[in-house]
């Protein structure tokens, strides 16, 4: 498995090409936009679909193979934001509040990056543990909390923790992911068969449509990248590699397959732009969205989608052969 052919296979997949089309549409100032309601509906579809499929697989899984990766994911959920906080001090001139906000985003995960990686691995014929979606749900929350904790150290006033935690936990990403998992566990493979055409067969097509819109959203953010400064660009491009390598290594050590370890790498490398921005905006309003949204959506998301995913896959394959 050489890294160039893996990267090329990823680049010509329909979802990634649709993302590129979105970027192009912005650069030529096209009026192309998905209606807001459609965008919301698709994001609900993706979250619920990923949740249900994960739940069906979780039902088949043995506790013995799940608990160690779960523990590793929890530890990474705390370690990654702390690393992001420290690393951003080294490569940017941002203050503690903005670095805490960055840590909250990079500690949390990106559903779409995860989904794109899952589709990429399935297309490559790579086995993936079904309970990886459980890890996605587990990794979503701690990063945000740790990031907010770090940001709060740079603030004069305390954060309203009960409101923040409540908002994160009752946010739709957690409700749909956790709810979908429960649904999948309850209904099992036979129940899933009845919704398979909708959540299975159509899934990659809907993801392609979603990535078209995200290409437009990311493309608009690209304009802010110029103002963000070189330090933030360096952070947005190199931190995913560090965090992703950690995730892949942790995944392989905890007994995950190459596919599973790749996905854990993608989870740790990706940064949130749905749950985290809202939580950060409400809890730490001084932090600049121009910094965290630009880094998360304008730099790291396209990087992971185009180059990161095949890199983590390649790295997992190489490391898996050694370990």
């Amino acid at each position, binding site marked *: 498995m050489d890294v160039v052919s893996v990267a090329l296979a990823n680049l010509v997949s329909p979802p990634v090409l649709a993302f590129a089309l979105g970027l192009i549409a912005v650069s030529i100032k096209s009026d192309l936009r998905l209606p*807001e309601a459609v965008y919301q509906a698709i994001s609900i579809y993706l979250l619920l679909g990923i949740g249900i499929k994960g739940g069906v697989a979780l039902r088949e899984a043995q506790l013995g193979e799940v608990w160690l990766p779960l523990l590793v994911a929890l530890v990474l959920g705390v370690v990654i934001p702390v690393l992001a906080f420290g690393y951003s001090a080294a490569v940017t001139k941002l203050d503690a509040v903005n670095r805490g906000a960055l840590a909250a985003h990079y500690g949390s995960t990106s559903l779409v990056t995860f989904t794109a990686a899952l589709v990429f691995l399935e297309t490559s014929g790579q086995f993936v543990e079904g309970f990886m979606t459980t890890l996605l749900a587990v990794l979503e929350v701690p990063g945000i909390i740790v990031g907010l904790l770090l940001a709060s150290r740079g603030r004069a006033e305390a954060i309203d923790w009960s409101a923040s935690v409540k908002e994160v936990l009752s946010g739709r990403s957690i409700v749909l992911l956790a709810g979908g998992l429960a649904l999948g566990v309850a209904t099992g493979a036979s129940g899933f068969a009845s919704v398979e055409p909708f959540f299975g067969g159509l899934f990659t097509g809907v993801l392609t449509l979603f990535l078209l819109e995200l290409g437009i*959203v990311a493309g*608009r953010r690209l304009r802010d990248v110029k103002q963000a400064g070189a330090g933030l660009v360096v952070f947005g491009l190199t931190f995913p590699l560090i965090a992703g390598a950690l995730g892949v290594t942790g995944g392989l050590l905890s007994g995950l397959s190459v596919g599973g370890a790749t996905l854990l790498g993608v989870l740790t490398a990706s940064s949130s*732009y*749905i749950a985290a*921005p*809202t939580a950060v*905006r*409400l809890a730490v*309003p*001084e932090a600049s*969205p121009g910094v965290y*949204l630009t880094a998360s*959506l304008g730099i790291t998301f396209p990087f992971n989608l185009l180059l990161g995913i095949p890199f983590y896959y390649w790295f997992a394959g190489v490391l898996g052969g050694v370990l």
Partner: protein
Amino acid sequence: MELVNKHLLTVVAEAALERRLLEELGGVGITGYTVTIAHGAGVRGGREGDIEGGNVRIECVTSRDKAEAALAVLARDYFAHYACVAWLVPVEVMRAEHF
């Protein structure tokens, strides 16, 4: 026709604040309101906003006292850090018991 003097309080703020602002309004005794999705430009330029998109415009007809109490809360907790503007205009309403 019997018209009664009231005040119309309008708040335009980033959409993420909607739930919190409605709770604040309830806290000063304002229970009726209308919320609409809004977009526009202000002193900081047009807001591309977060990915969840845009602003909300919250309107409520109320007494001057309650409107001022709400504005005081906005000034204390929101104006400094959030994209949030508010204004108050006198209005005349029918069926004053609705407000």
